[in-house]
């Protein structure tokens, strides 16, 4: 190669991405351009530094739990898809009774079992995951800290959802919230809402 290579070829060569004839041609050209050889060495040194210091792979914390969450999300979506009512073209109307709830297709049954673990907590290294028994879609509650357990009580019959955290570190008694402000970023709040709970109106 006698003429200067184009920028693309040069960049690929600098980053050691050329092979075969193209590489050989660039090497021949660079032999007459020591500044380019120096630039390549500089790039190599820089990349070696980066590669040596910045890990290419980092196992996510709680790796097993990481996979479990992905599996569960996939399975939940499968259940949700299985429970979706199918469109009913005339040709299959007569077999629709197979889809009725009391027959509980296997996938749906498995999914409902998953969703109705009601109060059961799976204690896995790296965090607790609870499946709240409220039906589809099942809310997910998890605590990243293995020491903390979230007890989930779904709202039913007019009650609210309550989560009781056990094992969470106490806030030191010396901590003072004296400068607490009653914050609101808008004047559109209905003050009666605040009054209902007894907390002062935001306005």
């Amino acid at each position: 190669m006698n003429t200067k290579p184009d920028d693309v070829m040069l960049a690929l060569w600098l980053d050691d991405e050329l092979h075969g004839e193209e590489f050989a041609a660039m090497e021949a050209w660079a032999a007459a351009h020591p500044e380019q050889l120096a630039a390549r060495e500089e790039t190599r040194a820089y990349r070696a530094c980066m590669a040596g210091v910045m890990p290419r792979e980092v196992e996510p914390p709680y790796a097993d739990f990481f996979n479990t969450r992905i599996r569960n999300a996939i399975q939940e979506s499968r259940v949700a898809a299985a429970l979706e009512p199918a469109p009913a073209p005339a040709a299959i109307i007569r077999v629709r009774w197979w889809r009725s709830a009391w027959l509980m297709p296997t996938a749906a049954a498995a999914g409902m079992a998953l969703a109705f673990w009601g109060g059961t907590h799976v204690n896995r290294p790296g965090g607790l995951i609870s499946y709240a028994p409220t039906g589809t879609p099942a809310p997910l509650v998890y605590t990243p800290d293995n020491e903390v357990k979230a007890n989930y009580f779904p709202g039913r019959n007019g009650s609210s959802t309550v989560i009781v955290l056990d094992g969470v570190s106490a806030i030191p008694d010396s901590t003072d919230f004296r400068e607490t402000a009653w914050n609101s970023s808008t004047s559109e709040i209905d003050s009666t809402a605040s009054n209902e709970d007894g907390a002062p109106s935001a306005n």
Partner: protein
Amino acid sequence: MNKIPRPTSNPVTGPLEPVVPQAGAESDDDSVLVSRAQSGDLRAYDELVIRHRGRIFAMVRNMIHNEADAWDLAQEVFIKAWNALPRFEAKARFSTWLFRIAHNTVYDWTRKRRPESAGELNDEIFDRERIDLSASTAPSEAEAPDASLQHGELRRKIEAALAKLSPEHREAVILKDVQGLSYKEIADAMGCTLGTVMSRLFYARQKLQTLLKDEYETR
């Protein structure tokens, strides 16, 4: 043909020779699992997750510099990948395809963080850098046994320098110089042209090299 040896997998010592990804080897290993996963085999997909979670988590964490969110986002990448599996074509490299999804996921997350004019937020309080990343809910990765204090300090300098780049420039550097993707693969992952990747990388490296010049010349 001049072959560049593949570096060792030990991220601490690192290669002394240039890093060149071995094209083809990974996709051969993955293709069987991908095919099975596309048929609905969740166990095959689980294996793919195990194989690739390290790289995806590292990439996402380097992009958003927040361990707790990176953990969630990395999972989101794999969940989205599962949903998109029917559209994955065997001729493509699975890891590159994953990086593409990671790129989109990080981009969407960054957009959602908060709107520019979201009212009177106290930016200082909500600066994610101030969130205690050493806390147990955001555990740090285990330091390699022979990592020195200096090593850790250098990594912090590099991370700080990366944080000064725009997301596009930062991603180009992460994918090229940390993950070892080729230019073509980066272009595929970032959804841009080869020329765009090259110019972004050129600019980003110039800036990084200026910031880190003292560091790597004395090592």
